[in-house]
């Protein structure tokens, strides 16, 4: 029993250390890497433009539901005029960064883990190393830098569409004055809220993309499977762990910033 606990603890500490070194190496290797800008743009396109539809759709429906639920709850207390406050603070402080990150994990993160896993399996990563090209600089660093830039932008877009969804529910469907909704949004959101939102978005982006890259990159080290199954197992593990990390990091950041 004690041995099993000890072995698992050691394994977690080892993985944590390995992951930190992997991320650090990626950032360090980016310094002086040739044509990095071009690769960041490409990674930004994959993480940003390709994920745009899902961000817009989920953002809109989140806002619609928040508007609907919020309106009925506030209506009980005759405070419908605070609908904008409820929707905006929910989206800016919590739902926006968390849901946008989860959507991006499902779309961009899983794709990244699978792509790197296949590149590892087909010796493409080994080929880079034999060419004298740092695989961390070529494959990982641009993704991490792009995540730091793209996640906050996607989150902002998610919130904007969500606010619009809330307004649709409140004013178009339930008859709340549009001006009342938007003025309460304006009054409610302050700069610390926005700062918290972007801090969360950038942190989630970095953590999730780094985790997905780590598991894809090390798919050959998967102990439970080999070949295509190792890629599948690594991708699943990357997505599940990233989702948990988003929620755990959300709690930690919120407890520090609130």
């Amino acid at each position: 029993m004690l041995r099993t606990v000890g072995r698992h603890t050691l394994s977690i500490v080892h993985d944590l250390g390995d992951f930190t070194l992997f991320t650090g190496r990626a950032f360090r290797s980016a310094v002086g890497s040739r044509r990095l800008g071009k690769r960041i743009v490409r990674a930004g396109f994959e993480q940003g433009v390709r994920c745009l539809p899902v961000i817009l759709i989920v953002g809109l429906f989140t806002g619609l539901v928040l508007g609907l639920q919020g309106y009925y709850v506030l209506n009980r207390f005759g405070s419908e005029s605070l609908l904008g406050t409820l929707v905006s603070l929910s989206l800016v402080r919590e739902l926006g960064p968390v849901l946008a990150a989860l959507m991006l994990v499902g779309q961009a993160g899983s794709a990244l883990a699978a792509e790197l896993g296949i590149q590892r399996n087909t010796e493409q990563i080994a080929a880079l190393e034999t060419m004298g090209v740092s695989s961390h600089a070529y494959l990982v660093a641009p993704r991490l830098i792009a995540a730091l830039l793209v996640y906050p932008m996607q989150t902002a877009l998610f919130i904007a569409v969500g606010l619009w969804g809330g307004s649709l529910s409140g004013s178009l469907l339930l008859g709340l004055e549009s001006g009342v909704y938007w003025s309460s949004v304006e009054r409610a959101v302050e700069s610390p809220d926005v700062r918290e939102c972007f801090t969360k978005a950038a942190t989630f982006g970095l953590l999730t993309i780094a985790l997905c890259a780590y598991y894809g990159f090390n798919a050959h080290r998967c102990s439970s499977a080999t070949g295509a199954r190792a890629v599948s197992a690594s991708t699943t593990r990357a997505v599940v762990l990233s989702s948990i990390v988003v929620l755990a990091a959300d709690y930690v950041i919120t407890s520090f910033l609130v």
Partner: protein
Amino acid sequence: MSADTNHMLLRIEGLFKRFEEHVVLDGATLDVPRGSLVSVLGRSGAGKSVLLKCLADVVRPDQGTILFDGKPLGIGDAAARAEFRRRCSFLFQSNALFDSLSALENVALPLEQTTDLSDAEIGERSLEALRQLELDAHKDRYPSELSGGMQKRLALARAIVTRPELVLFDEPTAGLDPLRRNAVFAMIAKYQRQFGFTALVVTHDLTEALIASDRVALLDKGRMCFEGTPAEFSASSEPMVCDFRDSAEALGRSLAAIRRGEALNSEDS
């Protein structure tokens, strides 16, 4: 520096590699003269690919010395390794082409990432490499859209575009039919002479290796049990060499014995 060292581009001395309890390389030695085509023969699992991967730093050897152009490639000696990578290319058994890049982008990649050439120069040199391997008409195609032979040529184009002095070939003919095996070996020999690089080929195709190579070596159980010219290999009385060389005849004998056994069995019944 001695004349012998000058003559040898690559020298491997006492290379040792173990994976857990399994010893793969057990003091392997090899000399690769400058400008030659050397084939390392051996059965599957003899340690050929590991030997090549130790050279390419994909696998780290446990012990031994690798001298490239007379200078040791120390384990962890980043500068010497970087210099070696700049002057050496590796052709993987699987080709290891980037499936999301076009043929031209695949060839341009090492130039883009390891040189300060302008985009125009990179484009020109990459296209030239494709042209030399008769692939320029397919420059915009993705590897999955090319035939097996074309993929092999594309991998070679990517390997030679940096104008390396040494090209390492890992089982370039594995899984190919006899006609394609001949074609791949002919291609290696042709371009090795055309571009003047030194080639180290790991293979288990005896006939092709003996025809195309300047020197051959035989690896068995992690040790080099023969090194010499193809003529010397054909004349050698070394038991391992005889076994390997006469494997086709041995197969014939085994088959004949099996058939004889079948005949006896049918008489019994």
